[in-house]
């Protein structure tokens, strides 16, 4: 069967450390050194205080569902076979939110506020995608 490959992240100067951490099974985001704010998406400076001093902090991986939707009409042929699939926004304990998919649960079980934890989906040798599952 002819399979269309899913589009994968092409890391940039800003985003490469995020994806490299994911390959190691770590959820890391930039933590501003002067003000402590955890920021996402990755950027040169902190949107809260404009400092350029940061570290790539390892996060707990815990969060809750902020919003979730179910795609029935695929917008890209590579995802046709997956429909209906969820696209979820998770709010991490540390405050930052990110787009992801919830795995290991039926779409109908998802609810806003559901506690979740990160898992790492190794797509290929170059790319691992952080995803989330119901917290055990």
């Amino acid at each position, binding site marked *: 069967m002819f399979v269309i490959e*899913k*589009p*994968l*992240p*092409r*890391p*940039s100067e800003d*985003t490469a450390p995020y994806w490299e951490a994911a390959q190691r099974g770590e959820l890391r985001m930039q933590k501003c050194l002067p003000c402590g*704010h955890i*920021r*996402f*998406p990755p*950027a040169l400076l902190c*949107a*809260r205080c404009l400092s350029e001093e940061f570290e790539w902090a390892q996060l707990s991986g815990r969060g809750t569902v*902020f*919003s*979730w*939707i*179910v*795609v*029935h*009409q*695929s*917008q*890209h*042929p590579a*995802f046709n076979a*997956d429909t*209906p*699939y969820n*696209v979820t*926004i998770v*709010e991490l304990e540390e*405050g*930052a*939110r*990110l*787009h*992801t*998919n919830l795995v290991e649960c039926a779409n109908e079980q998802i609810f*806003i506020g559901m506690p979740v934890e990160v898992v790492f989906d190794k*797509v290929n040798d170059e*790319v691992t*995608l952080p*995803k989330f599952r119901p917290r055990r």
Partner: protein
Amino acid sequence: MGNLSGKYAIVGVGTSRFGKLQGVSTMGFTLEASKRAIEDAGVPRHEIDGVLVMMPAIMGEQHGWAARVAAYLGVAPTFSATMDMGGATACGSAATAIAAIDAGYCRTVLCCFATQNWPQGVAMQLFGSEFQVPYGDVGAITLMAHIKRRQQHEHGFKDEHYGQIAVTWRQHALLNPDAQMKKPMTLEAYMRSRWVAEPLRLFDCCPNTDGGGAFIVTSMERARDLAKPPARILGAGQSHSSEMIHPRGNDNQPWGGKPAAEMVYGMAGVRPKDLDVAQFYDAFTPRVIHDLVAYGICKPEEVGDFITGDHLSLGGTLPANTAGGLISEGHLSGFGHIREGVRQVRGECGARQVPDAELCLVTGYGGAPHEAPPTVSYSALILGK
């Protein structure tokens, strides 16, 4: 702060042919819509010395787009720019136009746009950030699905509220000979329509539309010598913000567009209850619910009854989207809404005319829902007789 309220007016409006139309280029639609607006205004072409053009939705190599549109129209402006506020560009370009005229950079400004979805439709499916596309979050629809999800979670709006908006706009579209959607819609049909991205249904969404729109802005001094009644620009406002994902943090996120609302009412010196008619930017039905609150028409707890009480229909308290909206007239990126607002205050709308319409609110909304972080631009105009 200087107040430009009432000094400037929209004196001409036009759209190209629009619908599912292959065979006409983006430039072609832009020129067609612009020519019709220029003719509607009755201004000689040599008087147009400002040109603002919305960035074409197909994000290719479109450098110098506004200047090229001007060249094809035989116009050499002293003020011109390509603007990218998505669906907020229509109202936003009017706001920029009056500032430019007031500053003395130009006297008469053409504002225009067009979209041609073919053959770029396939390439469009891939657009989105590296933090969304790998998860199957592709394109513009998923953010609006999240917005509806959060609206229903926080305020309990029912699907029937969203559906009644779609049904009402379809009734209005049936009175508009240009409208792309021509079949009546019942609430039952809305509730049966399939999920696109749950909780968004097919009938929550506007169609894809190929076509363009344009309008001409000039001073009231000039407008007085033109044949058709001017639609005075009484107020303009805008605001810009991230959506869902906030680099600065999640605290203190206001209801989006409230600064734009304060600005537009403040400049016009009117209040929401003074409005006679409104054109809400409605690529999707949740937008209307959002704007009813953002623009002070209803408190969140009043929205449901306002909709089911038919207040948005012709004959209601605040007839809205009287040409059918983006959802039923067609996606003209807000330029169709400006055209309809102008025609309402001119008294040109025939069967869908709001009697004695003097004040019309037009809202805009646009941005990059597929980017990281998603961002939204809000814009608004108040047009007056």
